[in-house]
């Protein structure tokens, strides 16, 4: 075995970087290996791929490739009336479509000057928190699976299914709900919904204790995640990092607290933070955020009115001309700040919609930086720890 591939700390034989911070790869030297990680790798959170250059089993260089899911949503919306965009917007993010629906509806309402009734706002808050819970439950399976603990993924899928049952009961759809519509929501809570929800929440809490034991207190998980993939505090503004990735560096930034929307000002919560951001702490912040979401759903169900107006008066949606203007609406999703920039020219069709998905910054610029010198077997865990989601990048 050559000295180059030894695991000793001697890095004198490692290639030097050029002025652009990249190494000059000469594949014919047989030192390097080019490899594609994705788009069908089980450790990747959707269809994207990484073109990596390896030296031994260490990543020397990486380039993100996206575009496998590009359907041109933003362009398609320009050809559709506002209401016809609703089946499109939820498909921008599969794990939590409700944030798209909310941001799109809220931007429309702001431009059109529509006040949403209080009951509808409570129901929107409830749906957003349910979406957060189900998205975190999907993530936790991916994070543990990437480090070889398949069982946690099976448990969390079972828990997520119970939340999807409640979604189906409330909205008629399990994955895509189209429940939040301009002016309000589509319906009130069905009879007995709260009791069934409470049952699910108790079950999730008890299962989370098991996951805590199996995953977070597991020696293998700790050994592979503590001190791995650190995000520096200064990077937060430099790379546009938001959400749990930023909160785990110790900055308590949370759109729900900083830019209060819907009924969040009436709820009692504090942004979850950690001291420094490695894979373990990011996972822990998400775990605590998940439990906070359980608490918030309980608070919402206790405080929300049973009955009331759920839709404001709106023009006929097929002939609705939204007044000309531009606005940006944001919400806190599980991955960070989600936002919609909407431009209306006063016609029945949106002039331009731009979706700000948090993965746009996390999966391209940040990941390409963090992955350097990472071990091949840790790439999947690192990616999932950033909780990236490709359709937000390519829209």
């Amino acid at each position, binding site marked *: 075995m050559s000295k180059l591939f030894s695991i000793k700390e001697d890095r004198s034989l490692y290639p030097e970087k050029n002025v*652009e911070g990249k190494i000059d790869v000469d594949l014919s030297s047989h030192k390097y290996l080019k490899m594609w990680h994705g788009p069908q790798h089980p450790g990747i959170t959707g269809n994207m791929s990484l073109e990596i250059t390896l030296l031994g089993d260490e990543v020397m260089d990486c380039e993100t490739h*996206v*575009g496998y899911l*590009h359907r*041109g949503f*933003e*362009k*398609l919306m*320009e*050809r559709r009336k506002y209401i016809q965009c609703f089946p499109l917007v939820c498909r921008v993010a599969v794990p939590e479509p409700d944030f798209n629906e909310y941001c799109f509806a809220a931007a429309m309402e*702001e431009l059109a000057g529509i006040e949403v009734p209080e009951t509808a706002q409570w129901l929107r808050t409830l749906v957003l928190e349910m979406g957060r819970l189900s998205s975190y439950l999907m993530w936790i399976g991916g994070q543990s699976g990437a480090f070889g603990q398949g069982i946690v993924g099976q448990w969390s899928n079972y828990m997520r299914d119970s939340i999807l049952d409640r979604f189906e009961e409330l909205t008629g759809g399990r994955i895509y709900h189209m429940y939040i519509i301009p002016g309000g929501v589509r319906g009130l809570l069905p009879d007995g919904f709260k009791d069934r929800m409470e049952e699910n929440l108790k079950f999730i809490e008890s299962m989370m204790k098991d996951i805590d034991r199996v995953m977070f207190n597991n020696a293998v998980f700790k050994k592979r995640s503590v001190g791995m993939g650190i995000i520096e505090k200064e*990077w937060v*503004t*430099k*790379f*546009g990092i938001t959400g749990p990735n930023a909160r785990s560096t110790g900055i308590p*930034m949370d759109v729900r607290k*900083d*830019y209060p929307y819907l009924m969040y000002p009436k709820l009692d919560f504090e942004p979850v933070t950690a001291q420094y951001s490695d894979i373990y702490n990011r996972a822990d912040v998400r775990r605590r955020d998940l439990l906070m979401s359980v608490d918030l759903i309980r608070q919402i169900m206790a405080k929300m009115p049973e009955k009331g107006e759920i839709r404001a008066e709106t023009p006929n949606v097929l002939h609705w001309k939204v007044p000309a*203007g*531009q*606005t*940006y609406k*944001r919400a806190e999703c599980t991955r960070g*700040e989600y*936002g919609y*920039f909407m*431009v209306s020219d006063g016609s029945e069709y949106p*002039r*331009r919609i*731009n979706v*700000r998905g948090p993965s*746009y*910054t996390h999966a*391209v*610029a*940040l990941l390409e*930086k963090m992955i350097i010198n990472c071990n091949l077997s840790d790439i999947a865990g690192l990616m999932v720890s950033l909780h990236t989601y490709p359709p937000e990048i*390519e829209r």
Partner: protein
Amino acid sequence: MKELIDRLKTSYTVEDYIQQRSDLAHITVSKETAVDFISHLQRVEGYKHLVILTAVDWIEDGKFQLTYLLNNPEMKNDINVKVFIERENATMESIHHLWEQARTYQRELKEMFGIDFPGSPGVDKPFILEGWHDLPPYRRDFDTKKYSEETYFPRPGREKNDPATYMKQKLYPNE
């Protein structure tokens, strides 16, 4: 936010100030002073977070509107800095030295709108559309329907109905 805009007006030409909400203002600056203005906002005024960088095609005026949405995490407000550039041979100064993620946005804008950002790393590399040789697809004059009709063949046996007349026939056949 009005005080901030008044303060900025003393050193820069700021036009079309619109207070959209208490925490969001739209302003327009000229193409020549834009990058200087944005870096002033970032370094001096605390607008450290680049939320989005996107473009709007105002084809009827022959202009692209570049939108730099900047956020001040301490004051908790946003400024939408609008920059209008010519649609023909659209170029703009790069801001990749201010934010790391800006290069990704600029790469996307080059691909989708054909706006060039000379000097931005990797701006000429395809981002989402590999092997695309047509008009940049997010421009208003790119017709998606025409493109798909020309590129993809119709599926045999597929019937098309106009939704309004079809529903009328179904619901009120005698009228």
